[in-house]
């Protein structure tokens, strides 16, 4: 029995249970069913790949999402089964020991390790807004990233800047992709991201030696290919024009569409509506709250969580002034026009039949 399976078995997860999980993973990633088997074999075979997890400007929500699921999930186990060589939040070591561990992990696995980052990178004041052991995140990232095999930006902060980068962005926070430009990088946005997405990406990498197909924003297409709205079970209500108007009205009780309450489902690419959360139990819309679009770039500044997508994102500041300006221009033109017309009328010389032919016709 191989190492991974031993670990799994130790946690009470059988070979069949693991195979079943891989089948589900393949299905989620829209890979053929046979890929499930291949993934299971690949994961079992794999030499423990080293993983270095660096937390930057973040809230630890992403890590929580993966490690604190209600039962010992396979996601957590796979993660555990990998060699998590450095994670400040999880590791027992602290202080100089921790620094030492990072240094060793990077050196020992140079060119082979998976670098997972959660949180954005502050660039203001030369990165001084977020430091670990006296070194800025920016500095650390510039040192570690070039030695990684692949970089996974976990969560919206790492992927797109997230809340730290929201206006007015005092720390000059940027996405990882702004700094790491020459490594295979996958974004797994979400606040937090769905845990299975990360395992899917790692499983894919271990099975096929490559990242899954990514979209323009470097998100795995299999999970971010459709909007919440596309897969939402409330979609039929949208199509029929049935909307909840407030969170406690009859429409809300009837489970009608939450578009008018500001749901960002139509512009949010994520898998919540079909993968769901908490072991496939539910997702925010199912709990009666509209999608806030947390996995989209710039979601925090996208015009308010409770404003319908079709409503103006901000107050109209110019309209009143424009009406006044229009009236002013109009009146000015009107006065000028009346003056011109008046001048033409004043200059009018009564026409006679003599004026029907050109006076200068014969003179020249």
């Amino acid at each position, binding site marked *: 029995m191989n190492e991974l399976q031993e670990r799994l078995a130790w946690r009470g997860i059988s070979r069949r249970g693991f195979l079943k999980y891989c089948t589900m993973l393949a299905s989620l990633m829209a890979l053929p069913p046979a890929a499930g088997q291949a993934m299971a074999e690949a994961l079992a075979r794999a030499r423990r790949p080293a993983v270095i997890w660096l937390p930057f400007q973040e809230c630890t929500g992403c890590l929580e999402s993966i490690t604190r699921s209600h039962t010992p999930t396979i996601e957590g186990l796979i993660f555990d089964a990998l060699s998590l060589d450095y994670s400040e939040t999880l590791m027992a070591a602290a202080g100089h020991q921790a620094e030492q561990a990072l240094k060793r992990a990077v050196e020992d696995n140079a060119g082979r390790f998976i670098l997972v980052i959660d949180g954005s990178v502050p660039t203001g004041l030369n990165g001084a807004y977020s430091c670990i052991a006296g070194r800025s995140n920016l500095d650390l990232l510039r040192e570690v990233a070039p030695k990684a095999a692949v970089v996974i930006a976990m969560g919206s902060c790492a992927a797109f800047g997230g809340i730290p980068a929201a206006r007015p962005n005092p720390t000059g926070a940027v996405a990882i992709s702004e700094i790491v430009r020459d490594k295979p990088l996958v974004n797994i946005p979400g606040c937090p991201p769905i845990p299975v997405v990360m395992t899917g990406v790692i499983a894919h990498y271990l099975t096929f030696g490559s990242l899954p197909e990514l979209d323009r924003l470097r998100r795995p297409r299999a999970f971010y290919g459709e909007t919440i709205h596309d897969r939402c079970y409330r979609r039929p209500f949208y199509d029929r024009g049935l909307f909840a108007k407030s969170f406690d009205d009859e429409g809300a009780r009837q489970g009608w569409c939450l578009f008018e309450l500001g749901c960002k489902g139509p512009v949010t690419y994520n898998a919540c509506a079909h993968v769901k959360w908490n072991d496939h139990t539910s997702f925010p819309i199912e709990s009666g709250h509209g999608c806030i679009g947390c996995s989209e770039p710039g979601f925090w500044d996208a015009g308010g969580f409770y404003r319908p997508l079709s409503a103006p994102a901000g107050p109209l500041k110019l309209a009143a002034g424009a009406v006044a300006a229009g009236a002013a221009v109009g009146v000015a033109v009107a006065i000028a*026009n009346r003056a011109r017309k008046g001048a033409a009328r004043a200059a009018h010389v009564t026409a006679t039949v003599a004026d029907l032919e050109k006076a200068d016709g014969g003179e020249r």
Partner: protein
Amino acid sequence: MSSTALQAHNSTRATRGASLERAVEVLKEVIDAPIASYFSSCVHCGLCAEACLFYTETGEPKYTPIHKLEPLRRVWEREYTLLGRVKKWLGLSKPLTDEELGAWRELVYDSCTMCGRCSLVCPVGNDLVYMIRKLREGMALAGHAPPGVVAATRRTVEIGSPMGIRWPAVAAQIKHVEAETGLKVPIDQAGAEYMLLLSSMEIINFPEYLSAIARIMHVAGKTWTLCSEAFEATNSGIQIGVSDIARVIVARVVNAAERLQVKTVVSPECGHAYFALRWDGPNLMGRPFGFEVKHVLEVLDEFRVQGLIRTEGFEEGRLTFHDPCQIVRRGGVIEPQRHLMQMIARDFVEMDETGKYNWCCGGGGGVSANEEAEGLRLAAFKRKKAQLEACGAQTLVTACANCRIVLEEGLEHYQMALPVVGLTELVAKHLAQDDGRRQDEEG
């Protein structure tokens, strides 16, 4: 030349004779809110072309009514819109040139009878004929009115009638009518109820109109008169489009009617004459009149309603009525002719598009006086020809001497044997002599 000298030169140029400057000035004067609204509304849908017989019969896109108004539009845009003026300052729009205006003569005069049919079909509601009338103010003062129309206008102003007829010719006709009917034709009779006007065309070509009127008035027992100083009803000033001249012409009639203290001035069987006097007249004079203006058809229909005239017998065969544009579509006299036709025709058929939707004869708005337009006019006549053939009429009745002569020429050109008759004459022809009032008088 110094700039002051140039200005002085320009201003003298602008006040004497025709010139582009005068044209632009007068267009600036006549452009008003409706015109601004119309030009702002046009979407270039081209439907007005489908209502214009000069387009439908030639298939030439340049005869599209809105296109004929391009010079007016340009003056409006340049002078009365901010964007137009900005374009002007930036040198993005070219000023109107005399050559351009000259090139437009064919479109504004030769291929437009001011029939106003386009004004009825425009989906955004543009009153195109309203604009053509105003554009002609400028065209005429730029010296681009057709020579034939200029000559007719000159004769109207200088001699008193577009065809150059003077009172003696009318007096001769009167003698002839008096001899024929045995009725006196009153002249310059103050206090008469009706003052009759004539059109030159009637005096020369259709003297039967005067005798018909004499007999009808006699039977109806109404007092009426002709005026030796204002017998001519037609107004070339309107057709050429110069209000100042139209005012001079219309003033003759107004002054005469007020001097004779008549109650009603009766416009003869002539379209533009009616429009000039009834609808443009008070606006030209700048005041309402002290008398009423009616078309002879309205007067006859009133007599019919009041029982003052009755007819006996009917015309043979199938009759149809050609609605003169200025009386019907532009004048609002729509029903009287139909009642009168019913009096004298057993088989009266309407043409397919009739009443306010009639098709013009092709000779209105000065076109019949414009020799250069003859070919176009005959081409446009194909519309009327098709209508007449479709309705199968054997007699064509109308109530406009100008229409009548244009119809006769057209029919002759296309070798159609179809008599054209004035409605007043037909009513007079069937006038019942045993009228109640007349019997009373005799008794």
